[in-house]
């Protein structure tokens, strides 16, 4: 049995097509994901915009505007700004949104825009409201493809709107309660949002929507690894191959030969998945929530299920080995569609199935393998992960039982 185990191991490790599809292919696909999704993620980073600040008479009458733009520029408030009444106003942003160029008039600011020296300007109107004007190029870019500019402009709009609302409320309060102007506590509270909102973490780690694609890739790789078990069964069955005839005639029981093949296939499938997982984790930097040991356990469970499914497919009578390998690829590709591998549409389809037809998601092995890693990353506890493990083990038991029935029923009528 040990020799059979070693031979199946060698057979799997020396099979070029298996090595390609089970080790090279996931790494190539993960690298492609990394390239595509990495650029998308970078595209949504906030990058400071060069803005002129028009410090004219209106600006000087607008208390707190200086402190506000300094905060937008990521600087300590200037001494002149801190003298303003709105010194407590906060942007609520930790990042630098603008690089400031000080000008004295809107005309000068427009000239700077025309010279491409700045992308826009900030000024205060007669009523003390801050306004942002963008160059036509910048505005055009924001509506087209440049994600960085879009995000930065959105953040600036939000911050300026917050400033204007706070300013308006402060003015109304002072009109209704003129005595409040003398209260230092009042001024400290203006614009102070601290305590009104609280950051709550509902997941184990910060959600990473991109990670699901990598997990779906692991699901597909796992199903592709079925081919190991398919070959192990096909080449041990007398009615499926000439090799099977030779091995069946030998004085080593069929169960022991099949068991040796299964264990070797499990080891190979697990190893190939571990390689893919390691590359995704350390090569592509996809998080596992600090639960790497659980991910290794997930690989063990997933590869066991994969080999069980492979055993069942391998045991189908009368189908040649090549057809079964084709079937393995087809099943992997189709089921991966429903686990969200092929882009946002597939991901939405996967979510729709999970919400509206949960049983289908439950019986989709690709989805369940994807869920294994998803559970590890997102959930605080291990209960969902354990539930998915149990589901996969139940699936494995069913696949093995069907495979065993198929193998027992075969009486080699078509040798």
């Amino acid at each position: 049995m040990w020799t059979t185990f070693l031979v199946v191991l060698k057979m799997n490790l020396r099979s070029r097509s298996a090595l390609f599809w089970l080790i090279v292919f996931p790494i190539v696909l993960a690298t492609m994901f990394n390239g595509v999704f990495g650029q998308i993620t970078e595209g949504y980073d906030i990058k400071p915009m060069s803005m002129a600040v028009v410090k004219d008479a209106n600006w000087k009458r607008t208390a707190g505007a200086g402190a506000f733009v300094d905060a937008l520029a990521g600087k300590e408030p200037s001494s002149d700004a801190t003298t303003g009444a709105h010194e407590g106003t906060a942007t609520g942003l930790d990042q630098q949104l603008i690089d400031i160029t000080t000008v004295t008039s809107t005309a000068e600011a427009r000239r700077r825009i025309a010279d491409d020296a700045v992308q826009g300007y900030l000024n205060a109107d007669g009523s003390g409201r801050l306004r942002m004007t963008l160059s036509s190029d910048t505005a055009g870019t924001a509506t087209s493809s440049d994600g960085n500019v879009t995000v930065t402009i959105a953040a600036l709009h939000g911050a300026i709107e917050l400033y204007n609302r706070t300013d308006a409320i402060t003015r109304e309060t002072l009109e209704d309660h003129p005595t409040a102007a003398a209260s230092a506590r009042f001024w400290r509270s203006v614009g102070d949002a601290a305590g009104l909102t609280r950051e709550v973490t509902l997941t184990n780690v910060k959600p990473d929507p991109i990670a699901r694609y990598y997990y779906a890739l692991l699901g597909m790789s796992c199903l592709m690894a079925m081919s190991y078990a398919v070959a192990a069964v096909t080449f041990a069955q007398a009615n499926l191959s000439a090799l099977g005839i030779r091995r069946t005639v030998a004085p080593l029981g069929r169960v022991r030969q099949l068991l040796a093949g299964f264990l070797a296939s499990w080891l190979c499938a697990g190893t190939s998945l571990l390689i893919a997982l390691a590359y995704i984790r350390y090569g592509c930097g996809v998080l596992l929530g600090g639960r790497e040991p659980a991910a290794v356990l997930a690989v063990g469970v997933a590869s066991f299920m994969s080999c069980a499914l492979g055993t069942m497919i391998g045991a189908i009578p009368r189908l040649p080995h090549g057809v079964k390998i084709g079937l393995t690829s087809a099943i992997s590709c189709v089921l991966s569609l429903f686990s969200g591998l092929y882009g946002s549409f597939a991901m939405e389809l996967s979510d729709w199935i999970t919400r509206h037809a949960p049983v289908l998601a439950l019986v989709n092995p690709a989805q369940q393998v994807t869920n294994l890693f998803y559970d590890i990353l997102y959930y605080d506890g291990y209960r969902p992960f354990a539930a998915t493990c149990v589901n996969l083990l139940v699936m494995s038991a069913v696949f093995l039982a069907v495979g065993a029935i198929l193998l027992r029923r075969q009486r080699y009528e078509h040798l």
Partner: protein
Amino acid sequence: MTVQSTQATSAVKVSRLVKHYGDMVALDYFDLDVKTGEIFGLLGPNGSGKTTAINCILALLAYDSGTIRVFGEPMTPTSYALKRRIGIVPQNVAVFNELTVTENIDYFCSLYVPNKADRVPLVEEAIEFAGLQDFRKFRPGKLSGGLLRRLNIACGVAHKPDLIFFDEPTVAVDPQSRNAILEGIRRLNRNGATVIYTSHYMEEVEQICDRILIMDHGRHLALGTADELKAMIDTGERITIATLDLTDDALAAIRALPRVIDATYDGRELDVRCRRGDRNLTDVLDTARRFGVNIGHLTSRPPTLNDVFLELTGKALRD
């Protein structure tokens, strides 16, 4: 005395074996008795039941009724002690494409001889037996058709079985490889192995088999040595004459000769099958001359195993 006793022992004895595939009868009360130490030829057209019979003997197939005994013991799928004494060389090359020549032989030998130390000399001997010394580290994909067949044989005989099944081992190999394979089978037999050999190459069977069984429709048709089989059929002599001007009257006259079984003419060659007799050739030639037939090349030969086979199983094409 010892030799006689050994000869009398059956290596394989099949009695009244019946096997159906649905409504089709594959083996119809089939009998077989292969003596220890002989090379036994099993012949039959495609679909005659040869492979079914072998698969039943090897316990690969269940059968409906009858008995099978190998070395005097009933053969079942779990007769591991018996299986250790059996080797099989299937018609299709059955080796792992991912393993080298040595690894393949070692693996199949390991199924019979688990101990590695015991196995090493056996593997080495099998490599030498098959003449694969220069190809130890080659994978099957790099071997020629003849070498592949020899590897297939080495994998089946490395554990030194007492009974070896060869199922058409020389299909698609060149004459040199075929000769080497047949010589190897003789050597195995000389070393004590009983061989059951199936092939469609009649001259091979005639060349190496001690006894031959011809079967068809799942039944035993004839059994004996090649000479005994030839004696069983009507044809005793076959005369072939190259001629371009044989008339219908001449052909009819030849057919009417007392010892002629059948005569056919295709416009270029006259083929006459005769019963045994001393004057067949002169009778045919006299008749041809009487009708003014010009005779070109002429041959006369005794019947071959192929003639026996065709006469017993018919000339109709099989699947």
